[in-house]
């Protein structure tokens, strides 16, 4: 005997348990973000005055620290040599890349951050390498061949169709219509939805399938008219939603 109340409580407990790791991760991320923000805010006033680093980089990419006199606050004032930037501007990057690649790729030895230069390097646009289509292998890891049998795993749709002919069961008609719609056979989906509607014109899903199949078959106007008629009769929210989607072009 089922104890539904107890089962619902257990389900709620299970759901909470299953979502717990996500909550924990979310809380950790939020707290770390907040923590880092607070840390940055508290760090700012303690920070020493900003150092003006001056790098004197010779043209051959040998970075050398120029001894500079210390100011009153014992901070190093470095003056950047902008010669190398000018050299980039003077020569096109494509040509320069082959001659002095080290200047671009090598990182400066100094740990001080370089002052941000307003100039930007004109790099050639990145083009992704062409994707070479690879042949799909049908062999398994052990080398054995796996054969896909596409005609398998299908319901005996012919059997269902003949049963539908015999019984004229609306639910079976709907099942077949849905089967065809799912398999992209919109002609048959349309036919069976129509037959189902003739048997029972109060099945919401059947009308929806009927209209959807019409849209898929390129008969959008007919689908709209059908839905409008059906909405006036049934006041169906689902039908209204579908009609809106078709009119907005969301459903094609």
């Amino acid at each position: 005997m089922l104890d539904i109340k107890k089962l619902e409580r257990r389900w709620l407990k299970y759901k909470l348990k299953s979502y717990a790791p996500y909550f924990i991760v979310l809380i950790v991320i939020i707290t770390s973000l907040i923590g880092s923000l607070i840390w940055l805010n508290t760090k700012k006033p303690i920070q020493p005055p900003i150092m003006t680093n001056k790098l004197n980089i010779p043209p051959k990419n040998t970075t050398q620290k120029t001894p500079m006199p210390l100011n009153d606050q014992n901070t190093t004032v470095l003056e950047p040599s902008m010669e190398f930037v000018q050299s980039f501007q003077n020569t096109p990057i494509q040509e320069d890349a082959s001659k002095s690649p080290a200047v671009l790729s090598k990182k400066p030895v100094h740990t001080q951050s370089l002052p941000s230069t307003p100039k930007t390097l004109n790099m050639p646009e990145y083009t992704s390498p062409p994707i070479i289509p690879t042949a799909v292998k049908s062999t398994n890891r052990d080398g054995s061949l796996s054969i896909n049998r596409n005609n398998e795993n299908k319901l005996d749709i012919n059997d269902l169709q003949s049963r539908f002919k015999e019984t004229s069961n609306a639910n079976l008609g709907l099942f077949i219509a849905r089967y065809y719609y799912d398999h992209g056979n919109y002609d048959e989906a349309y036919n069976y939805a129509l037959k189902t509607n003739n048997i029972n014109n109060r099945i919401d899903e059947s009308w929806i399938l009927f209209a959807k199949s019409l849209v898929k078959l390129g008969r959008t106007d007919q689908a709209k008219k059908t839905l409008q008629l059906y909405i006036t009769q049934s006041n169906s929210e689902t039908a209204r939603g579908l009609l809106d989607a078709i009119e907005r072009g969301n459903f094609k």
Partner: protein
Amino acid sequence: MENSLFSKPRELFLDIVNPRDYVQIDSVSHMYQSLKSSVQKPLKMILLYGRPGTGKSMLLHKLHHDLSKHQKVLMVSTPIVDEDDFLRVLAQNIFGHAPREVMTLNRFLEISSALSLSSIPIVLLDEAQLYSPALMEKIRLISDARAIKFVITLHKTDQEDIIAKEHFQTRIWESIELQNATAEELKIYVQKKLLKSNCFDVANMFNDKNMKLIATLTKGNYRDTNKLLFSLFSLYCWYEENNPTLIKYNAIKPKWIEMAAIHTGLIHA
């Protein structure tokens, strides 16, 4: 409660092995055809193995149901662990001979050679992993003497690979492994079962999302699927009687699938 829309589907998923309830799924059907053709070959032993709930017993029962129309077939569903009892049951059911004295292997082989049967009788042994090695050795000797052809089913476990056992490795001439069902196969299984019993409206309620969830929970195990669906339809029966407004007739509620899984022990909550 009995007139409920869901009471009939619930009864369909009672975990009973009945060859009439056999649902033809292409992969299983393929296995069954190869099993049937193996039985026709002059093999001594045929092994049918796989994880629990892959449909071994159902296939064996189906084979028994189909073959018994044409030839002498004995189905041993529950293992007979006592050697004397085992040989006695075989002698009585196959050769129609019930000796009063203790049945030894030699005596059994004498009886079988004395009777000239047109075709070798077939014995189907379910749950053969429960037989002792000594009895398995006697089964091997009987099959070697071509007195009886055996079709046996075994559980495949992670701990021991039964096929590797010596007495199977050398004597099995054909082995067929059954696999767990995929989500697609499970969907076909459930829908065919429902459609077979004209439960069209309930079959319409199962969508791909539902079946994916069921396949994840049961790991493609047919027995667990039956148990889960039995519980699910029991839940639906309860809600139909006590709180019908909660039922949506266009789709199965994932929440209720999970609740059924909790009830059957597939989810530990």
